[in-house]
């Protein structure tokens, strides 16, 4: 076998480079930097339980100095835990004029602090901010549990995207009263149905599911009931399935049962049906559900054959 000396030299050079990189002083410096950062973060966390008037100047200094965003983010969190008006003012200041990454963080920290005055200050920021700022403000309101602030944003939304983001947030917050108020407004949209489902509002969804004036909305509401789940939902979905002649409504009810995982209900419908096509559909649903009840049906069918 012919060995090329140049190739051997190149391999040796690469190996040598690898070992020198492993011992590179640059690597060591970065490790030290990491350690210093970690220590700074630990120091900031320790300041959370320190007297606030002592901690505040130190945290402020970190924010105004040349530190990484990770260290500054931690400083913002500590600031949110300092029960002094100056701390909230500083958070708002960063939220208004800080580096873009830190702005979002500062906004969320205002949510964590739950300070009413600072939260009120976020409304202006929402109005003048870009999408990132708006999302952060919604998150801050969610963290603070400020249902009304999110409702105001949804009610006064200037476009569908803004409305949807606020409604979704209300759903996550479980703000059923606010969502019902929005339903009464002219801004009603399908996103509200999803939000009703996420917030677990069975009563409103049931009402929409039984209202056949808007078939598309009705279908969405029936399916959304499945997300809410529970005994009441299962009973309602079976009722809807049985009481309708509409194939679309039946389809939606089955989707709802599939989502809620009500196997026994589907089996009950299967047993009650004398329509072969319907039986096949119900069997398909049970199979998709991964239900062992399919085996019962097979056993019964085999026993019947015998």
């Amino acid at each position, binding site marked *: 076998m012919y060995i090329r000396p140049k190739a051997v030299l190149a391999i040796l050079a690469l190996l040598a480079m690898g070992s020198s990189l492993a011992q590179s002083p640059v690597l060591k410096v970065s490790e030290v930097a990491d350690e210093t950062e970690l220590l700074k973060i*630990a120091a900031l*966390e320790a300041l*959370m*339980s*320190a007297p606030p008037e002592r901690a505040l100047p*130190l945290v402020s200094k970190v924010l105004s*100095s*040349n530190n990484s965003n990770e260290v500054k983010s931690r400083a913002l969190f500590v600031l949110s835990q300092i029960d002094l008006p100056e701390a909230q003012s500083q958070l708002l200041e960063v939220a208004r004029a800080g580096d873009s990454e830190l702005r979002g963080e500062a906004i969320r920290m205002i949510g964590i602090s739950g300070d009413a005055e600072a939260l009120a200050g976020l409304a202006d920021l929402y109005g003048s901010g870009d999408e990132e700022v708006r999302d952060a403000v919604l998150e801050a309101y969610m963290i603070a549990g400020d249902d009304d602030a999110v409702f105001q944003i949804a009610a006064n939304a200037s476009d569908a995207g803004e409305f949807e983001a606020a409604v979704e947030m209300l759903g996550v917050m479980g703000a059923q009263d606010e969502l019902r108020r929005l339903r009464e407004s002219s801004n009603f949209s399908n996103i509200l149905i999803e939000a009703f489902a996420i917030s677990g509002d069975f009563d409103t969804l049931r009402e929409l599911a039984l209202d056949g004036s808007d078939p598309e909305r009705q279908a969405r509401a029936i399916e959304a009931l499945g997300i809410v789940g529970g005994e009441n939902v299962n009973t309602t979905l079976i009722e809807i399935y049985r009481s309708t002649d509409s194939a679309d409504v039946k389809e939606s009810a089955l989707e709802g049962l599939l989502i809620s995982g009500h196997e026994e209900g589907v089996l009950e419908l299967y047993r009650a049906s004398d329509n072969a096509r319907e039986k096949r559909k119900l069997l398909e649903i049970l199979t998709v559900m991964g239900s062992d009840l399919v085996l019962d049906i097979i056993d019964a069918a085999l026993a019947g054959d015998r």
Partner: protein
Amino acid sequence: MKTVLRIVVVVVLIAACIGSESLGAVFDGPVDDGWHTWQVRAADGGELQIYVSIESGEPVQFRLRSNSICSGNFDVDATDLGFIDVDESIDWLQTYIEPRSRLGSDIIMAISLHSGARPVVILATIVKTQTDREIREEALFWLGQSDSDAAFDVFDRLLSGNASM
């Protein structure tokens, strides 16, 4: 006259010994297996009662009780070593701050609860010199609990990025 003076000196010395907190004896720390306890002047102005369980000559458990802290169950049969000088108590505790020791956190807490300026100096030294991150973080936490200028000077230097502290 000389005899009278000698008697006076002896009386004064005895009184001084009786008045001293550790009765003049050097505190070597508990050695025998089992629970031991002693008291020191606490940072909160009251007394700090330290309980330590020794096994094979080494501390294996700490419990602390003062006006501001109460860690663990104190329903143990402990040998009472009496009221000990703060420095002596700290000296003994300090020998057991090691990363290898799972008691590092307990010991740092115990030291930080002693009265005087020395706990802050020790905590600052731990932050500066210890390689074990958990121990350093523990020391930082207790520095944050101190209201002393020296403690916040440590934070200031650390957060200003002064590597030499």
